[in-house]
Protein backbone atom coordinates (compact mmCIF):
# COMPACT_ATOMS: atom_id res chain seq x y z
CA UNK A 1 0.00 0.00 0.00
CA UNK A 2 2.63 2.48 1.09
CA UNK A 3 4.98 1.14 -1.56
CA UNK A 4 2.31 1.64 -4.18
CA UNK A 5 1.69 5.21 -3.18
CA UNK A 6 5.41 5.86 -2.97
CA UNK A 7 6.03 4.73 -6.52
CA UNK A 8 3.28 6.97 -7.83
CA UNK A 9 4.68 10.12 -6.26
CA UNK A 10 7.35 11.66 -8.47
CA UNK A 11 8.43 13.92 -5.61
CA UNK A 12 9.52 11.12 -3.31
CA UNK A 13 11.27 9.25 -6.13
CA UNK A 14 13.21 12.37 -7.05
CA UNK A 15 13.94 13.06 -3.39
CA UNK A 16 15.13 9.54 -2.66
CA UNK A 17 17.29 9.48 -5.79
CA UNK A 18 18.95 12.80 -4.97
CA UNK A 19 19.58 11.75 -1.38
CA UNK A 20 20.91 8.38 -2.53
CA UNK A 21 23.26 10.05 -5.02
CA UNK A 22 24.67 12.33 -2.32
CA UNK A 23 24.97 9.51 0.22
CA UNK A 24 26.71 7.18 -2.24
CA UNK A 25 29.08 9.95 -3.35
CA UNK A 26 29.85 10.79 0.25
CA UNK A 27 30.49 7.25 1.44
CA UNK A 28 32.43 6.02 -1.58
CA UNK A 29 34.25 9.28 -2.33
CA UNK A 30 37.78 7.78 -2.32
CA UNK A 31 36.75 5.18 -4.90
CA UNK A 32 34.52 7.38 -7.01
CA UNK A 33 36.63 10.52 -7.25
CA UNK A 34 38.92 10.39 -10.28
CA UNK A 35 41.64 12.41 -8.54
CA UNK A 36 42.78 13.55 -5.14
CA UNK A 37 40.55 16.57 -4.37
CA UNK A 38 43.47 18.67 -3.14
CA UNK A 39 45.91 17.72 -5.88
CA UNK A 40 47.00 20.89 -7.63
CA UNK A 41 48.27 21.04 -11.17
CA UNK A 42 48.98 24.70 -11.61
CA UNK A 43 49.52 24.23 -15.34
CA UNK A 44 45.87 23.29 -15.62
CA UNK A 45 44.29 26.31 -14.02
CA UNK A 46 40.75 27.35 -15.00
CA UNK A 47 40.33 24.60 -17.58
CA UNK A 48 36.74 24.24 -18.80
CA UNK A 49 34.60 21.13 -18.24
CA UNK A 50 35.61 18.19 -20.39
CA UNK A 51 39.22 19.34 -20.65
CA UNK A 52 41.59 16.44 -21.27
CA UNK A 53 45.17 16.98 -20.19
CA UNK A 54 48.27 14.86 -20.36
CA UNK A 55 50.27 14.35 -17.24
CA UNK A 56 53.78 12.95 -17.51
CA UNK A 57 55.34 11.80 -14.30
CA UNK A 58 59.12 11.83 -14.00
CA UNK A 59 60.93 10.25 -11.11
CA UNK A 60 64.52 11.32 -10.57
CA UNK A 61 66.75 9.49 -8.15
CA UNK A 62 68.68 12.64 -7.42
CA UNK A 63 68.48 16.27 -8.23
CA UNK A 64 70.47 16.50 -11.44
CA UNK A 65 70.57 20.00 -12.87
CA UNK A 66 71.34 18.69 -16.34
CA UNK A 67 68.34 16.38 -16.31
CA UNK A 68 66.09 19.19 -15.25
CA UNK A 69 67.59 21.27 -18.01
CA UNK A 70 66.98 18.49 -20.48
CA UNK A 71 63.42 18.20 -19.33
CA UNK A 72 62.95 21.90 -19.68
CA UNK A 73 64.19 21.81 -23.24
CA UNK A 74 62.08 18.82 -24.10
CA UNK A 75 59.25 19.11 -26.53
CA UNK A 76 55.77 18.78 -25.19
CA UNK A 77 52.46 18.97 -26.93
CA UNK A 78 49.84 21.35 -25.58
CA UNK A 79 47.75 20.38 -22.61
CA UNK A 80 50.59 18.60 -20.91
CA UNK A 81 51.73 18.96 -17.37
CA UNK A 82 54.96 17.37 -16.29
CA UNK A 83 55.29 16.26 -12.74
CA UNK A 84 58.90 15.69 -11.73
CA UNK A 85 59.40 13.73 -8.59
CA UNK A 86 62.86 14.30 -7.12
CA UNK A 87 63.72 11.93 -4.29
CA UNK A 88 60.02 11.47 -3.78
CA UNK A 89 59.60 15.15 -3.20
CA UNK A 90 57.40 16.38 -5.98
CA UNK A 91 58.57 19.24 -8.07
CA UNK A 92 56.33 20.46 -10.76
CA UNK A 93 57.50 22.51 -13.65
CA UNK A 94 55.80 23.52 -16.78
CA UNK A 95 57.88 22.43 -19.69
CA UNK A 96 57.56 23.59 -23.21
CA UNK A 97 59.69 20.80 -24.66
CA UNK A 98 60.64 17.29 -23.82
CA UNK A 99 63.81 15.32 -24.44
CA UNK A 100 64.41 11.66 -25.09
CA UNK A 101 65.20 10.99 -21.42
CA UNK A 102 63.52 7.74 -20.50
CA UNK A 103 62.80 8.56 -16.92
CA UNK A 104 59.05 8.76 -17.24
CA UNK A 105 57.01 6.61 -14.96
CA UNK A 106 54.13 6.93 -17.29
CA UNK A 107 52.07 9.34 -19.23
CA UNK A 108 48.44 9.56 -18.42
CA UNK A 109 45.63 11.46 -20.00
CA UNK A 110 43.18 12.81 -17.49
CA UNK A 111 39.79 14.21 -18.36
CA UNK A 112 38.48 16.87 -16.02
CA UNK A 113 34.76 16.35 -16.54
CA UNK A 114 33.73 19.44 -14.61
CA UNK A 115 36.86 21.44 -15.33
CA UNK A 116 39.45 22.72 -12.89
CA UNK A 117 39.60 25.58 -10.41
CA UNK A 118 42.17 28.34 -9.97
CA UNK A 119 44.71 25.89 -8.55
CA UNK A 120 44.19 23.30 -11.25
CA UNK A 121 42.29 21.01 -8.91
CA UNK A 122 39.70 18.65 -10.33
CA UNK A 123 36.27 20.13 -9.57
CA UNK A 124 34.45 16.81 -9.96
CA UNK A 125 36.64 15.16 -7.32
CA UNK A 126 36.19 18.12 -5.00
CA UNK A 127 32.43 17.95 -5.39
CA UNK A 128 32.43 14.22 -4.66
CA UNK A 129 34.46 14.75 -1.50
CA UNK A 130 32.30 17.76 -0.67
CA UNK A 131 29.29 15.42 -0.39
CA UNK A 132 31.03 13.92 2.65
CA UNK A 133 31.27 17.26 4.37
CA UNK A 134 27.69 18.21 3.62
CA UNK A 135 26.39 14.87 4.85
CA UNK A 136 28.50 15.04 7.98
CA UNK A 137 27.28 18.54 8.78
CA UNK A 138 23.71 17.62 7.94
CA UNK A 139 23.58 14.56 10.16
CA UNK A 140 25.70 15.83 13.05
CA UNK A 141 23.98 19.18 13.33
CA UNK A 142 20.55 17.64 12.91
CA UNK A 143 21.34 15.03 15.57
CA UNK A 144 22.47 17.71 18.01
CA UNK A 145 19.30 19.68 17.32
CA UNK A 146 17.24 16.50 17.69
CA UNK A 147 18.76 15.57 21.04
CA UNK A 148 18.42 19.01 22.59
CA UNK A 149 15.02 19.61 21.03
CA UNK A 150 13.48 16.31 22.10
CA UNK A 151 14.92 16.56 25.59
CA UNK A 152 13.78 20.13 26.26
CA UNK A 153 10.50 19.74 24.39
CA UNK A 154 9.60 16.60 26.33
CA UNK A 155 10.65 18.14 29.66
CA UNK A 156 8.56 21.17 28.88
CA UNK A 157 5.48 19.28 27.77
CA UNK A 158 5.43 16.59 30.42
CA UNK A 159 6.12 18.84 33.40
CA UNK A 160 4.28 22.00 32.44
CA UNK A 161 4.30 24.83 34.96
CA UNK A 162 7.49 26.75 35.67
CA UNK A 163 9.82 24.43 33.77
CA UNK A 164 7.61 24.76 30.73
CA UNK A 165 7.55 28.56 30.98
CA UNK A 166 11.31 28.85 31.35
CA UNK A 167 12.08 26.51 28.47
CA UNK A 168 9.53 28.11 26.18
CA UNK A 169 10.75 31.64 26.97
CA UNK A 170 14.22 30.44 26.11
CA UNK A 171 13.07 29.07 22.76
CA UNK A 172 11.33 32.40 22.13
CA UNK A 173 14.65 34.18 22.59
CA UNK A 174 16.36 31.71 20.28
CA UNK A 175 13.67 32.36 17.69
CA UNK A 176 14.28 36.06 18.19
CA UNK A 177 17.49 35.80 16.22
CA UNK A 178 17.44 35.26 12.49
CA UNK A 179 19.15 31.86 12.08
CA UNK A 180 21.94 32.84 9.72
CA UNK A 181 22.77 35.93 11.75
CA UNK A 182 23.00 33.88 14.93
CA UNK A 183 25.28 31.39 13.19
CA UNK A 184 27.47 34.18 11.84
CA UNK A 185 27.70 35.65 15.33
CA UNK A 186 28.81 32.38 16.89
CA UNK A 187 31.26 31.37 14.19
CA UNK A 188 32.71 34.88 14.11
CA UNK A 189 33.23 34.84 17.87
CA UNK A 190 35.06 31.51 17.70
CA UNK A 191 37.77 30.45 15.28
CA UNK A 192 36.05 29.46 12.05
CA UNK A 193 36.26 25.72 11.38
CA UNK A 194 33.98 22.89 10.35
CA UNK A 195 33.65 21.60 13.92
CA UNK A 196 32.39 24.99 15.05
CA UNK A 197 29.85 24.87 12.22
CA UNK A 198 28.60 21.40 13.25
CA UNK A 199 28.09 22.58 16.78
CA UNK A 200 26.72 26.03 15.98
CA UNK A 201 24.11 24.79 13.53
CA UNK A 202 22.94 22.16 16.01
CA UNK A 203 22.85 24.64 18.88
CA UNK A 204 20.90 27.21 16.91
CA UNK A 205 18.30 25.03 15.19
CA UNK A 206 16.91 22.96 18.08
CA UNK A 207 14.06 25.30 19.12
CA UNK A 208 11.90 24.17 16.20
CA UNK A 209 12.24 20.57 17.33
CA UNK A 210 11.58 21.50 20.95
CA UNK A 211 8.34 23.28 20.07
CA UNK A 212 7.23 20.37 17.93
CA UNK A 213 7.92 17.75 20.61
CA UNK A 214 6.26 19.86 23.29
CA UNK A 215 3.18 20.22 21.11
CA UNK A 216 3.08 16.47 20.53
CA UNK A 217 3.45 15.71 24.21
CA UNK A 218 0.71 18.16 25.17
CA UNK A 219 -1.60 16.68 22.57
CA UNK A 220 -0.91 13.04 23.39
CA UNK A 221 -1.05 13.65 27.14
CA UNK A 222 -4.80 14.11 26.87
CA UNK A 223 -5.34 10.86 24.98
CA UNK A 224 -7.24 8.18 26.84
CA UNK A 225 -4.55 5.54 26.70
CA UNK A 226 -2.03 7.90 28.26
CA UNK A 227 -4.55 8.87 30.90
CA UNK A 228 -5.17 5.21 31.74
CA UNK A 229 -1.45 4.55 31.85
CA UNK A 230 -1.21 7.38 34.36
CA UNK A 231 -4.04 5.93 36.41
CA UNK A 232 -2.22 2.62 36.48
CA UNK A 233 0.61 4.43 38.24
CA UNK A 234 3.15 4.24 35.47
CA UNK A 235 5.88 6.84 35.90
CA UNK A 236 6.03 9.96 33.77
CA UNK A 237 9.33 8.87 32.34
CA UNK A 238 8.06 5.49 31.22
CA UNK A 239 4.95 7.05 29.73
CA UNK A 240 7.13 9.51 27.84
CA UNK A 241 9.60 6.97 26.53
CA UNK A 242 7.27 4.03 25.96
CA UNK A 243 4.09 5.76 24.83
CA UNK A 244 4.47 9.38 23.87
CA UNK A 245 7.75 9.54 21.93
CA UNK A 246 7.08 6.47 19.74
CA UNK A 247 3.79 8.05 18.73
CA UNK A 248 5.47 11.34 17.84
CA UNK A 249 8.11 9.63 15.74
CA UNK A 250 6.58 10.62 12.40
CA UNK A 251 6.75 14.40 12.81
CA UNK A 252 10.14 14.08 14.52
CA UNK A 253 11.54 12.18 11.53
CA UNK A 254 10.09 14.76 9.16
CA UNK A 255 11.61 17.64 11.11
CA UNK A 256 14.92 15.77 11.33
CA UNK A 257 15.02 15.23 7.56
CA UNK A 258 14.15 18.84 6.81
CA UNK A 259 16.74 19.83 9.41
CA UNK A 260 19.43 18.03 7.40
CA UNK A 261 18.54 20.15 4.37
CA UNK A 262 18.68 23.27 6.51
CA UNK A 263 22.03 22.32 8.03
CA UNK A 264 23.56 21.63 4.60
CA UNK A 265 22.41 25.05 3.44
CA UNK A 266 23.68 26.70 6.62
CA UNK A 267 27.13 25.13 6.27
CA UNK A 268 27.29 26.15 2.62
CA UNK A 269 26.33 29.72 3.49
CA UNK A 270 28.83 30.00 6.32
CA UNK A 271 31.61 28.47 4.25
CA UNK A 272 30.70 30.81 1.42
CA UNK A 273 31.23 33.73 3.79
CA UNK A 274 34.57 32.26 4.83
CA UNK A 275 33.26 31.43 8.31
CA UNK A 276 33.03 27.68 7.86
CA UNK A 277 35.33 25.17 6.20
CA UNK A 278 38.80 26.56 5.66
CA UNK A 279 40.96 25.93 2.57
CA UNK A 280 41.75 23.50 1.15
CA UNK A 281 38.75 21.58 2.54
CA UNK A 282 36.51 20.75 -0.42
CA UNK A 283 33.27 22.12 1.05
CA UNK A 284 30.78 23.18 -1.62
CA UNK A 285 30.15 26.58 -0.08
CA UNK A 286 33.88 27.23 0.32
CA UNK A 287 34.45 26.18 -3.31
CA UNK A 288 32.05 28.87 -4.49
CA UNK A 289 33.64 31.39 -2.14
CA UNK A 290 37.11 30.67 -3.51
CA UNK A 291 36.12 30.77 -7.14
CA UNK A 292 33.57 33.60 -7.19
CA UNK A 293 36.26 36.12 -8.10
CA UNK A 294 36.88 34.17 -11.31
CA UNK A 295 33.21 34.11 -12.29
CA UNK A 296 33.89 35.84 -15.59
CA UNK A 297 36.76 33.67 -16.76
CA UNK A 298 35.80 30.36 -15.16
CA UNK A 299 32.08 30.31 -14.28
CA UNK A 300 32.03 26.50 -14.09
CA UNK A 301 34.02 26.48 -10.88
CA UNK A 302 31.21 28.36 -9.11
CA UNK A 303 28.27 26.83 -10.93
CA UNK A 304 28.98 23.15 -10.32
CA UNK A 305 29.23 23.29 -6.51
CA UNK A 306 26.08 25.44 -6.37
CA UNK A 307 24.25 22.78 -8.34
CA UNK A 308 25.49 20.17 -5.88
CA UNK A 309 24.16 22.18 -2.92
CA UNK A 310 20.81 22.65 -4.64
CA UNK A 311 20.52 18.92 -5.38
CA UNK A 312 21.39 17.91 -1.83
CA UNK A 313 19.04 20.43 -0.23
CA UNK A 314 16.25 19.69 -2.69
CA UNK A 315 16.70 15.96 -2.10
CA UNK A 316 16.32 16.17 1.68
CA UNK A 317 13.49 18.70 1.39
CA UNK A 318 11.56 16.48 -1.01
CA UNK A 319 12.22 13.45 1.15
CA UNK A 320 10.97 15.24 4.26
CA UNK A 321 7.88 16.55 2.49
CA UNK A 322 7.08 13.14 1.05
CA UNK A 323 7.50 11.35 4.36
CA UNK A 324 5.08 13.83 5.85
CA UNK A 325 2.54 13.30 3.06
CA UNK A 326 2.88 9.53 3.28
CA UNK A 327 2.61 9.26 7.03
CA UNK A 328 -0.19 11.75 7.29
CA UNK A 329 -1.99 12.63 4.07
CA UNK A 330 -4.02 15.19 5.96
CA UNK A 331 -1.01 17.35 6.81
CA UNK A 332 -0.70 19.88 4.09
CA UNK A 333 2.65 20.48 2.43
CA UNK A 334 3.92 23.84 3.47
CA UNK A 335 7.49 24.98 3.05
Amino acid at each position, binding site marked *: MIVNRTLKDPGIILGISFVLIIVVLGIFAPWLAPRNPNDQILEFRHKPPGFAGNIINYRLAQDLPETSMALQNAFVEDNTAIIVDVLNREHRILLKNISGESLTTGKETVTFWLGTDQFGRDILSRIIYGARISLMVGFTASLIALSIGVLLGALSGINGGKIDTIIMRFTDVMFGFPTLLFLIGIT*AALEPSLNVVFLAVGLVTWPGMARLVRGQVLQLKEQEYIQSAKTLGISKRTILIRHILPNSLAPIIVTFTLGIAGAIMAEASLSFLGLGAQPPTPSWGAMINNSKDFLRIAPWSS*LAPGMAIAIAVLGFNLLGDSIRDLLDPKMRTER
Partner: protein
Amino acid sequence: MIQYFLNRLLQTIPVLFGVIVITFVLMYIIPGDPVVSMVGERYNEETIQRLREDMHLDDPLFIQFFRYVGNVFRGNFGNSFITGEPVINLIMEKFPNTMMLAVGAMFFAILFGLTAGILTSIRPGSFIDRGIMVLALAGISAPVFWVGLILILVVGVMLRWLPPTGFGGIEYLILPALTLGLRSAAYLARLTRATMLDVMSQDYIRTARSKKLSEWKIYLQHAFPNTLIPVITVIGTDFGSYLSGAVLTESIFGWPGIGRLALEAIMKRDFPVIQGTVLFMAIMFVLMNVLVDMLYGVVDPRIRLERSGK
Protein backbone atom coordinates in the same frame (compact mmCIF):
# COMPACT_ATOMS: atom_id res chain seq x y z
CA MET B 1 -7.94 44.62 19.81
CA ILE B 2 -5.90 46.91 22.04
CA GLN B 3 -5.70 44.12 24.58
CA TYR B 4 -4.28 41.83 21.92
CA PHE B 5 -1.69 44.41 20.83
CA LEU B 6 -0.65 45.07 24.41
CA ASN B 7 -0.29 41.37 25.14
CA ARG B 8 1.82 40.87 22.10
CA LEU B 9 4.04 43.84 22.99
CA LEU B 10 4.50 42.62 26.55
CA GLN B 11 5.57 39.21 25.27
CA THR B 12 8.48 40.76 23.41
CA ILE B 13 10.08 42.25 26.52
CA PRO B 14 11.63 38.98 27.78
CA VAL B 15 12.65 38.12 24.22
CA LEU B 16 14.41 41.45 23.73
CA PHE B 17 16.07 41.05 27.11
CA GLY B 18 17.28 37.57 26.14
CA VAL B 19 18.61 38.91 22.85
CA ILE B 20 20.63 41.55 24.71
CA VAL B 21 22.01 38.92 27.11
CA ILE B 22 23.08 36.70 24.22
CA THR B 23 24.87 39.47 22.32
CA PHE B 24 26.58 40.48 25.55
CA VAL B 25 27.69 36.90 26.19
CA LEU B 26 28.84 36.55 22.59
CA MET B 27 31.44 39.24 23.22
CA TYR B 28 32.73 37.39 26.26
CA ILE B 29 33.22 34.04 24.62
CA ILE B 30 35.47 35.60 22.01
CA PRO B 31 38.96 34.25 22.57
CA GLY B 32 41.60 36.88 23.23
CA ASP B 33 41.58 40.23 24.92
CA PRO B 34 39.39 42.82 23.15
CA VAL B 35 41.78 45.58 24.18
CA VAL B 36 44.73 43.80 22.61
CA SER B 37 42.83 43.33 19.39
CA MET B 38 41.83 46.98 19.60
CA VAL B 39 45.30 48.44 19.83
CA GLY B 40 46.84 45.87 17.55
CA GLU B 41 50.44 44.74 17.51
CA ARG B 42 52.15 47.93 18.67
CA TYR B 43 51.02 48.23 22.22
CA ASN B 44 52.50 48.73 25.62
CA GLU B 45 51.26 47.75 29.04
CA GLU B 46 50.40 51.32 29.93
CA THR B 47 48.06 51.92 27.01
CA ILE B 48 46.35 48.63 27.62
CA GLN B 49 45.82 49.36 31.30
CA ARG B 50 44.45 52.80 30.48
CA LEU B 51 42.07 51.40 27.89
CA ARG B 52 40.93 48.64 30.22
CA GLU B 53 40.05 51.31 32.76
CA ASP B 54 38.34 53.47 30.15
CA MET B 55 36.21 50.55 29.08
CA HIS B 56 35.59 49.41 32.68
CA LEU B 57 36.70 45.92 31.71
CA ASP B 58 37.90 45.15 35.24
CA ASP B 59 34.48 45.70 36.79
CA PRO B 60 32.42 42.70 37.88
CA LEU B 61 30.58 41.07 35.01
CA PHE B 62 27.07 41.95 36.13
CA ILE B 63 27.96 45.63 36.53
CA GLN B 64 29.36 45.57 33.02
CA PHE B 65 26.17 43.94 31.87
CA PHE B 66 23.92 46.56 33.43
CA ARG B 67 26.08 49.31 31.99
CA TYR B 68 25.74 47.62 28.61
CA VAL B 69 21.95 47.41 28.91
CA GLY B 70 21.80 51.05 29.96
CA ASN B 71 23.90 52.08 27.00
CA VAL B 72 21.80 50.05 24.61
CA PHE B 73 18.64 51.75 25.83
CA ARG B 74 20.23 55.14 25.31
CA GLY B 75 21.12 54.10 21.77
CA ASN B 76 24.83 53.92 22.60
CA PHE B 77 26.28 50.85 20.92
CA GLY B 78 29.92 51.78 21.54
CA ASN B 79 32.53 52.96 19.07
CA SER B 80 34.25 51.14 16.26
CA PHE B 81 37.74 49.87 17.15
CA ILE B 82 38.96 50.84 13.73
CA THR B 83 37.46 54.18 12.80
CA GLY B 84 36.40 55.28 16.28
CA GLU B 85 32.99 56.24 14.93
CA PRO B 86 29.92 55.49 17.06
CA VAL B 87 28.49 52.14 15.96
CA ILE B 88 24.96 53.54 15.96
CA ASN B 89 25.96 56.11 13.33
CA LEU B 90 27.42 53.40 11.12
CA ILE B 91 24.23 51.38 11.44
CA MET B 92 21.96 54.34 10.75
CA GLU B 93 24.01 55.22 7.71
CA LYS B 94 23.61 51.73 6.21
CA PHE B 95 20.11 50.89 7.36
CA PRO B 96 18.22 52.84 4.65
CA ASN B 97 20.06 50.82 2.00
CA THR B 98 19.08 47.57 3.65
CA MET B 99 15.51 48.84 3.92
CA MET B 100 15.49 49.69 0.22
CA LEU B 101 16.76 46.23 -0.71
CA ALA B 102 14.23 44.56 1.58
CA VAL B 103 11.32 46.46 0.08
CA GLY B 104 12.53 45.68 -3.44
CA ALA B 105 12.88 42.01 -2.61
CA MET B 106 9.43 41.84 -1.06
CA PHE B 107 7.98 43.56 -4.12
CA PHE B 108 9.38 40.89 -6.44
CA ALA B 109 8.45 38.11 -4.02
CA ILE B 110 4.81 39.18 -3.86
CA LEU B 111 4.59 39.91 -7.59
CA PHE B 112 5.99 36.56 -8.71
CA GLY B 113 4.83 34.47 -5.78
CA LEU B 114 1.19 35.52 -5.95
CA THR B 115 1.03 35.25 -9.74
CA ALA B 116 2.57 31.80 -9.71
CA GLY B 117 0.41 30.63 -6.83
CA ILE B 118 -2.82 31.74 -8.47
CA LEU B 119 -1.88 30.45 -11.93
CA THR B 120 -1.07 27.02 -10.54
CA SER B 121 -4.24 26.80 -8.49
CA ILE B 122 -6.52 27.32 -11.49
CA ARG B 123 -5.79 23.85 -12.87
CA PRO B 124 -4.05 21.73 -10.26
CA GLY B 125 -2.09 18.86 -11.77
CA SER B 126 -1.76 20.56 -15.14
CA PHE B 127 1.52 21.05 -16.93
CA ILE B 128 1.76 24.69 -15.85
CA ASP B 129 1.04 23.73 -12.25
CA ARG B 130 3.70 21.03 -12.14
CA GLY B 131 6.27 23.13 -13.94
CA ILE B 132 5.86 26.14 -11.68
CA MET B 133 5.80 24.02 -8.53
CA VAL B 134 9.05 22.29 -9.50
CA LEU B 135 10.57 25.71 -10.13
CA ALA B 136 9.31 26.89 -6.76
CA LEU B 137 10.88 23.93 -5.01
CA ALA B 138 14.13 24.54 -6.83
CA GLY B 139 13.91 28.19 -5.77
CA ILE B 140 13.64 27.16 -2.14
CA SER B 141 16.53 24.70 -2.40
CA ALA B 142 19.04 26.71 -4.43
CA PRO B 143 21.53 28.65 -2.32
CA VAL B 144 20.92 32.42 -2.42
CA PHE B 145 24.54 33.25 -3.09
CA TRP B 146 24.62 30.87 -6.03
CA VAL B 147 21.47 32.33 -7.59
CA GLY B 148 23.01 35.77 -7.15
CA LEU B 149 26.20 34.72 -8.91
CA ILE B 150 24.25 33.24 -11.81
CA LEU B 151 22.23 36.44 -12.19
CA ILE B 152 25.43 38.50 -12.14
CA LEU B 153 26.96 36.24 -14.76
CA VAL B 154 23.98 35.99 -17.09
CA VAL B 155 22.21 39.33 -16.77
CA GLY B 156 25.15 41.48 -15.76
CA VAL B 157 28.14 40.08 -17.59
CA MET B 158 26.84 38.14 -20.59
CA LEU B 159 23.71 40.07 -21.56
CA ARG B 160 24.85 43.38 -20.06
CA TRP B 161 21.30 44.36 -19.31
CA LEU B 162 21.98 45.56 -15.79
CA PRO B 163 25.07 46.51 -13.82
CA PRO B 164 26.37 43.29 -12.22
CA THR B 165 27.30 44.78 -8.85
CA GLY B 166 27.48 48.07 -7.06
CA PHE B 167 25.19 50.68 -5.65
CA GLY B 168 23.42 53.63 -7.22
CA GLY B 169 20.15 54.11 -9.06
CA ILE B 170 17.24 51.71 -9.41
CA GLU B 171 19.11 49.64 -12.01
CA TYR B 172 21.50 48.52 -9.29
CA LEU B 173 18.63 47.41 -7.07
CA ILE B 174 16.97 44.95 -9.45
CA LEU B 175 19.40 42.03 -9.38
CA PRO B 176 19.99 41.94 -5.61
CA ALA B 177 16.27 42.39 -4.94
CA LEU B 178 15.44 39.51 -7.28
CA THR B 179 18.06 37.33 -5.64
CA LEU B 180 16.88 38.11 -2.14
CA GLY B 181 13.19 37.80 -3.02
CA LEU B 182 13.44 34.48 -4.84
CA ARG B 183 13.07 32.22 -1.83
CA SER B 184 10.10 34.17 -0.55
CA ALA B 185 8.53 34.10 -4.00
CA ALA B 186 8.88 30.33 -4.12
CA TYR B 187 7.51 29.93 -0.62
CA LEU B 188 4.64 32.32 -1.30
CA ALA B 189 3.75 30.50 -4.53
CA ARG B 190 3.39 27.21 -2.66
CA LEU B 191 1.43 28.81 0.16
CA THR B 192 -0.89 30.74 -2.15
CA ARG B 193 -1.60 27.64 -4.19
CA ALA B 194 -2.46 25.62 -1.10
CA THR B 195 -4.69 28.41 0.25
CA MET B 196 -6.49 28.88 -3.07
CA LEU B 197 -7.09 25.16 -3.50
CA ASP B 198 -8.45 25.00 0.01
CA VAL B 199 -10.71 28.00 -0.48
CA MET B 200 -12.00 26.80 -3.85
CA SER B 201 -13.39 23.66 -2.25
CA GLN B 202 -15.35 25.62 0.37
CA ASP B 203 -19.11 25.75 0.43
CA TYR B 204 -19.43 29.44 -0.27
CA ILE B 205 -17.58 29.02 -3.56
CA ARG B 206 -19.96 26.25 -4.50
CA THR B 207 -22.82 28.59 -3.65
CA ALA B 208 -21.31 31.28 -5.86
CA ARG B 209 -20.97 28.79 -8.68
CA SER B 210 -24.55 27.63 -8.30
CA LYS B 211 -25.57 31.27 -8.61
CA LYS B 212 -23.90 31.17 -12.02
CA LEU B 213 -21.36 33.83 -11.17
CA SER B 214 -18.57 33.91 -13.71
CA GLU B 215 -15.45 31.92 -12.80
CA TRP B 216 -13.36 35.08 -12.97
CA LYS B 217 -15.61 36.88 -10.58
CA ILE B 218 -15.48 33.95 -8.17
CA TYR B 219 -11.74 33.87 -8.42
CA LEU B 220 -11.08 37.56 -8.02
CA GLN B 221 -13.83 38.58 -5.64
CA HIS B 222 -14.41 35.53 -3.50
CA ALA B 223 -11.21 33.54 -3.45
CA PHE B 224 -8.43 36.05 -4.02
CA PRO B 225 -8.83 38.09 -0.82
CA ASN B 226 -7.94 34.94 1.11
CA THR B 227 -4.42 35.07 -0.28
CA LEU B 228 -3.82 38.00 2.03
CA ILE B 229 -3.04 35.55 4.84
CA PRO B 230 -0.18 33.75 3.02
CA VAL B 231 1.15 37.12 1.90
CA ILE B 232 1.30 38.32 5.48
CA THR B 233 2.82 35.02 6.58
CA VAL B 234 5.62 35.41 4.08
CA ILE B 235 6.17 39.03 4.99
CA GLY B 236 6.20 37.84 8.57
CA THR B 237 8.74 35.11 8.16
CA ASP B 238 11.00 36.81 5.65
CA PHE B 239 10.78 40.59 5.82
CA GLY B 240 12.23 40.61 9.31
CA SER B 241 15.24 38.63 8.18
CA TYR B 242 15.66 40.91 5.14
CA LEU B 243 15.72 43.92 7.41
CA SER B 244 18.08 42.19 9.74
CA GLY B 245 20.61 42.25 6.99
CA ALA B 246 20.63 40.06 3.95
CA VAL B 247 24.25 39.24 4.66
CA LEU B 248 24.74 36.88 1.72
CA THR B 249 23.00 39.00 -0.91
CA GLU B 250 24.64 42.21 0.24
CA SER B 251 28.08 40.66 0.20
CA ILE B 252 27.70 39.24 -3.33
CA PHE B 253 26.39 42.44 -4.87
CA GLY B 254 28.52 44.81 -2.89
CA TRP B 255 25.37 46.39 -1.50
CA PRO B 256 26.29 48.79 1.32
CA GLY B 257 23.74 47.60 3.90
CA ILE B 258 24.04 46.53 7.52
CA GLY B 259 24.58 42.89 6.54
CA ARG B 260 27.76 43.83 4.76
CA LEU B 261 28.70 46.17 7.59
CA ALA B 262 28.49 43.23 9.98
CA LEU B 263 30.45 40.96 7.69
CA GLU B 264 33.23 43.49 7.20
CA ALA B 265 33.38 44.03 10.94
CA ILE B 266 33.78 40.27 11.38
CA MET B 267 36.62 40.16 8.88
CA LYS B 268 38.39 43.06 10.63
CA ARG B 269 37.44 41.68 14.06
CA ASP B 270 35.91 45.04 14.96
CA PHE B 271 34.03 43.72 18.01
CA PRO B 272 31.83 46.68 18.96
CA VAL B 273 30.55 46.87 15.40
CA ILE B 274 29.87 43.11 15.33
CA GLN B 275 28.05 43.28 18.63
CA GLY B 276 26.12 46.41 17.68
CA THR B 277 24.99 45.19 14.28
CA VAL B 278 24.00 41.76 15.57
CA LEU B 279 21.98 43.32 18.37
CA PHE B 280 20.38 45.87 16.07
CA MET B 281 19.44 43.22 13.52
CA ALA B 282 17.99 40.93 16.16
CA ILE B 283 15.92 43.80 17.59
CA MET B 284 14.64 44.64 14.11
CA PHE B 285 13.78 40.99 13.57
CA VAL B 286 11.83 40.72 16.82
CA LEU B 287 9.98 44.00 16.29
CA MET B 288 9.12 43.06 12.73
CA ASN B 289 7.62 39.77 13.91
CA VAL B 290 5.49 41.60 16.46
CA LEU B 291 4.28 44.00 13.80
CA VAL B 292 3.29 41.15 11.53
CA ASP B 293 1.48 39.35 14.33
CA MET B 294 -0.49 42.52 14.91
CA LEU B 295 -1.25 42.69 11.21
CA TYR B 296 -2.69 39.17 11.40
CA GLY B 297 -4.94 40.38 14.14
CA VAL B 298 -6.16 43.27 12.00
CA VAL B 299 -6.77 41.09 8.96
CA ASP B 300 -8.19 38.01 10.60
CA PRO B 301 -10.58 38.58 13.50
CA ARG B 302 -10.45 34.89 14.42
CA ILE B 303 -6.78 35.12 15.37
CA ARG B 304 -7.37 38.28 17.36
CA LEU B 305 -10.17 36.75 19.38
CA GLU B 306 -8.44 33.49 19.99
CA ARG B 307 -5.25 35.07 21.26
CA SER B 308 -6.65 37.86 23.37
CA GLY B 309 -9.02 35.40 25.00
CA LYS B 310 -6.10 33.68 26.71
